[in-house]
């Protein structure tokens, strides 16, 4: 008796051989960049360079160029730091957690998602440093190193210090995990190389990978272990970032909901950014048969799920502010929705809670232009979420005499854009220099070619 079953969508479409996979994935690496790539790359590079020039001048002249003031001592820099850290969550989630849960659809997207993670964490890493008044000290005074100043130790009670550890650990583990995953593919690229210099570089990068059974066996164990190590980090990093706020006594910050709320938000924004990037990448590098509409569909499901989580968090915050009976909490939340920053608050609600609701419908989940627009909306919304949290609470805290209205300065806009420039520059370079799709893993989930003769897709 045949059981009617839901037919699973193929993870790789078209009839492909293993050679096709290698050829198609390596194509961008082995051909001269297209005009389109150059245009986007040079634009990103320009934005990045000008952003860094502005940072340089800020370090020279003073943090005052930013819009920060009293009482809003944290502004664009911390907002954008949290934003990028959040973006960085999707990569590890896709590569580690989905790997452990054996979600095979991750294989096509994990490489670029992880790359994105690393670049996002790099972008994020710039901000805590340059937002300080004296970056020339903060880059090493925040580490507990033996010194002749007393010796003077760091303050282990400060969440900012926890941040230093959390973010640096996260970056290290993510980078190692990503690189480990890359090794077999780099070896493939090496083997295909014609140019001796290229060959030399990829030979070094591939760490002597030969593709032996022993190699594969060790490799897969290492990958499992790294996935296991990365998994708690997905939860811990943003939890600790949220402690920057939760451990303070500022109304709207001092709340226990922050860790799960921040993690959900981070995954939400991370997936949105992955969707944004993949929609472009599959178009530009002609990878539509690897990064299928089915992949995007799955990700949109996660976006709507995490979007609902974030919406729930927003609602819970309001409820608890009222339920706690603390007048300061109540005031802040009323201020958020109805006060001077209501425009930011409602931007956030529109982008984060309302816009993902379209993804309840399958046809809309598979609508490329719509998902592209919505993913950008979600990213805007998530930036504003951090804006709302950071700014509104500081601007109207305890003593009304200090209240003030915060505006971003032109420098803030420049540096914010610059971080996007940096992110896209790195991503575009990545697309040209490393295989954007994990060839080894994709080959593993393709139908067994030996059985089908390699010509017919089963």
């Amino acid at each position, binding site marked *: 008796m045949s059981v009617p079953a839901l037919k699973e969508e193929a993870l790789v479409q078209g009839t492909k051989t293993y050679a096709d996979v290698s050829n198609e994935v390596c194509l961008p690496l082995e051909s001269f960049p297209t005009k389109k790539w150059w245009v986007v790359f040079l634009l990103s590079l320009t934005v990045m360079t000008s952003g860094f020039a502005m940072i340089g001048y800020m370090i020279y*002249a*003073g*943090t*005052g160029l930013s*819009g*920060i*003031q*009293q*009482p*809003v*001592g*944290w502004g664009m820099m911390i907002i954008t730091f949290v934003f990028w850290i959040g973006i960085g969550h999707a990569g590890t989630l896709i590569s580690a957690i989905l790997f452990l849960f054996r979600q095979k659809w991750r294989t096509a997207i994990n490489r670029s998602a992880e790359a994105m993670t690393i670049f996002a964490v790099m972008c994020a890493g710039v901000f805590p440093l340059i*937002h*300080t*008044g*004296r*970056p020339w*000290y*903060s880059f090493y*005074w*925040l580490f507990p190193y033996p010194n002749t*100043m007393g010796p*003077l*130790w*760091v*303050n282990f*009670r*400060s*969440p*900012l*210090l926890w941040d*230093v550890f959390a973010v640096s650990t996260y970056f290290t583990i993510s980078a190692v995990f990503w690189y480990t995953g890359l090794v077999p593919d780099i070896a493939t690229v090496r083997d295909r190389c014609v140019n001796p210099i290229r060959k030399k570089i990829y030979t070094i990068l591939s760490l002597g990978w030969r593709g032996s059974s022993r190699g594969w066996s060790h490799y897969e164990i290492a990958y499992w272990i790294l996935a296991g190590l990365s998994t708690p980090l997905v939860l811990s990093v943003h939890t600790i970032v949220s402690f*920057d706020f939760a*451990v*303070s*006594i*500022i109304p709207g910050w001092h709340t226990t909901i922050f860790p799960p709320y921040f993690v959900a938000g981070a995954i939400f924004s991370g997936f949105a950014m992955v969707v944004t990037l993949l929609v472009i990448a599959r178009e530009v590098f002609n990878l539509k048969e690897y990064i299928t509409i089915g992949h995007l569909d799955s990700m949109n499901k996660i976006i709507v799920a995490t979007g609902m989580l974030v919406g729930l968090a927003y609602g819970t915050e309001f409820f608890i502010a009222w339920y706690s*009976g*603390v*007048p300061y909490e109540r*005031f802040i939340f009323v201020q958020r929705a109805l006060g001077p920053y209501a425009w930011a608050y409602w931007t956030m609600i529109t982008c984060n809670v309302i816009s993902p609701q379209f993804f309840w419908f399958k046809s809309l989940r598979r609508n490329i232009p719509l998902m592209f627009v919505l993913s950008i909306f979600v990213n805007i919304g998530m930036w504003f979420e951090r804006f709302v949290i950071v700014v509104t609470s*500081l601007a109207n*805290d*305890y*003593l*009304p*005499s*200090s*209240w*003030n*209205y915060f505006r971003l300065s032109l420098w803030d806009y420049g540096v914010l854009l610059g971080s996007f420039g940096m992110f896209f520059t790195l991503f575009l370079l990545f697309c040209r220099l490393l295989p954007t799709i994990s060839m080894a893993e994709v080959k593993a989930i393709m139908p067994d070619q030996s059985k089908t003769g390699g010509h017919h897709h089963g």
Partner: protein
Amino acid sequence: MSTAENDLQKNWEALRSAQHKELSEGSRTLWRTLSDVTSSKEDLAAERSQEFSHQLPAEEDAQRFNRRRFLQMMGASGALIGAAGCQRRPVDHLVPYVHKPEGLTYGTPMWYSSSAANGVGVLIKTREGKPIKFEGNPDHPVTQGGLDAHSQASLLDLYHPERLKTPMTGGAELKETSWREADTQILQALKNAKPGGVRLLTGGSISPTLNSVIQDFMTTYRAKHHGLNTSSDAAILAATDRLSGQRVRPTYRFERADVIVSVDADFLGTWGSTVENTKSFSKRRKIHQGDTNVNRLFVFESWMTNTGIAADHRFAISPTQQLSVLKALIAGVQGSTAADPMVAEAVRALRAARGKSIVVAGGHGPDAIEVQVAALLLNSLLGNLGSTVDFDTPSITGFENTADVADLVADMNAGKVDVLIIHGVNPMYSAPYLKFEAAFSKVPTVVTVTSDLNETAINSKFILAESHFAECWGDSEIRSGVISIQQPVIEPIFQTRSFGECIATWTTPTAVAIDYREVVQNYWRRSVASGVAGFDNWWMDQLKVGATKRAASKKSPAFRWAAANEILNSTKARAKEDLEIVLYTSPNMGDGAQANNAYMQELPDPITKVSWTNFVAVSPATGEKLGLERKTFQNMSESHASVLSVKVNGATVELPAFVQPGIADNVVAIALGYGRTSAGTLGTKVGANASILASFEKGRLQLSGQRAEVKKTGGKALLASTQKHFDLEGRDYDILQTTTLASFLKNPKAAKEGGHAVKLMSMYSDKEFVYPEHKWGMAIDLNSCTGCQACVVACYTENNVSVVGAEEIAMGRHMAWLRLDLYYSGDPSKPETVEANYEPMLCQHCDNAPCETVCPVLATVHSTDGLNAMAYNRCVGTRYCSNNCPYKVRRFNFFQYSDQLARKLDITDPMPMMANPEVTIRTRGIMEKCTFCVQRLQRAKDDFKDRGLRVADGAVKTACQQSCAADAIAFGDLNDPKSEVSQLAAKAQAFKVLDVLNTRPNVSYLPRIRNKGAVES
């Protein structure tokens, strides 16, 4: 015995035995080191042989650039680059004293008593010969340790890079000249002047010596002395003159008054001798000292002043109503029933306090003299003359014997004036209505003695650089019989002279330079009439204590009250204008003389918190009529405000609008003292000069009550303010507790009633912290504080706090460690309901300091004596501490603010000499905040430790506390239960700001208690 000692012992023994050996062997060798003796001969020989064994490289070897050499060079240059990068500031050489002055210890401050320019007794703190701080002299019988913001800020006047440094000649081109040259020419002009052709124009001189020198000068040259009095109590002299023929200003003994009624007299801010007024007024507000017979203040005023904020009952009236209010009070006191409820309560209170009340009136409103006549009459009807209104020891204004300035202008125009000597006033700027400009050209020789190149000076023939009060001898008599000698603490920094020196010099036949100290001494030798030996003792005592008393020149003016009634009856009641102008003296800017003083410009206006400009203040209702946005206490201040043009008598002034609740409707108020055109880099073109709106008719100056036409220009202008939100948002219980006297007497905790006593859950520890030695704390009495902000400027000068300028303030980046928060209550659209309260806010030095836990680098930590300390060097500037501070008292150096002034001024010398060497200058990128003047605490602890004692209560005063004329601040050791601060903190009514957060501040506040009378109305 330690190892080192062991070794030493062994060596010593070895040495001894060797010596014995040598002596016994008879071959005594000389030894150089211990090892010579202890080591064996072989070892020694080996060592010696190696001493010069090292091969020196041959010349060509050294020049060969081998690998080793290359690496050495690389390393060295790398290290050099690193070292060059490490060097942050050039090394300046300190030059020690070659001959150390007697009694001076390097690094220990010396204190000298003196008198400030306005006669307030000061103590001047000097370090290594440089005055670095002015403090109130507690031994001064009148000002009793209080010091006003102006005198505090005048430290910068002394070191201002844009001070006049040499005498100059004016004309088409300013030229430096020498005193000798100037003296010769001025003397020539004086000698050649026709009879009556020499004139002096001054502000009020309260210096007995100067007045006697001027008298001599006038006799010598048959000169005439004119006074230009723009102060808001000027009309009192005219009024007493009208009634008695004697120009005399009584001393108002606020400390004796149970009820005070002020009609437009801002006696706590700008009217009369404000330090004296504040001192005596606040003496009767010390509820916490068990005094329940506190005074009760009724204020009738057109705009908002500190006096209005201190009032128990405040009524907004327009300037044209002043006289009718006083007439109604007179009628009420005489027995008729007052119809006006506003007046009725005041009448009731006044009648109950006969002989123990004061009525003061002020301003240059319409009928200013009649208003003063009415106030005098009222005081006389209440039997206050002789008790609270004191003519026995009158105040000295310096205008008692001066001739009218209007006569001077007339004479100048008539060509009767050959030489005009101006000092202390700037008529070209402050009195445009006198039309000096045209008259000046008719005077051949105009001599201006001034410390800055002001509007009058640049039009003068001689511009003579004046010394600062800390640089020259002098004296003052603030109240008849109360004398203070002004002693210099530094040689004149530049080629300057005091005005008295100038006049005395020109009085000598050949203009030989005068030793002004001798002049002052001679005056007092004559005046105190003791023998020479006795005088020397008197003089030294005088300099030590800083103030003394002599017999007051008692004035007993015989008032003709019939004339008073006649004057009042013949003055018709004024019709209210649609829109009336009020030009008021700004508490910060005064007459504009300190316009170039960065501290006074930076200091926010106490009421509106706007700095670096003046503005047009209107009530919310009037504002709406003029098309301004509707304002509440929540959104009073905006960084860019609509510009209004105000036209009075054909003259127009354009300034940003400020909607100020509490101002009388249909009044537009503008501060004087701004809009200088020649005040130096900082003071020029800041705001607009509103005195062009004044009118001057029949010798009477009128600054308020004229009809004004106001319209929006459509433009916007920057309005930098340090506070933008003035509403407590229902947080009274947590932030600022207030109550009435009647409720307080029933229940000392009355101010706490109605608040939520819910203790919030806290993540901070509930354990009591133990501070073994001291635990420093402060208590601030909101009932005494008048909002004068002298404490704020005192803090700036003591702690080298940076001035940041208007743009930065507009961003919300002012640097004041201590600020005066102001909160309103009432209905902003109904001026009579508006009440306001000050709350000085500074670092609360919390036991559970939220700032400390969040700093990642431990730059802010708690000290063992209960201070929240800042390690500037360690701070990297994350600003997390400031974010987490619920009091928002931390200030961040967003730029290199300590250089801000110098950059703006271009030249800096001698400004760096002003800095307090005991307080670090903060660099950019770091956080700073109130330290409870830790440098003072440390010095006091050291001093007492040397004597083997514990720091006595009251022995150490913070800069803010020292300056406070109202004695609103107590500071001391909370570990000592007997200390003043402990006792205040333990009062039932004492509260701590945001106590619910469990931050455990060490600053306690005593609530504002309004005396609304026995029955709640």
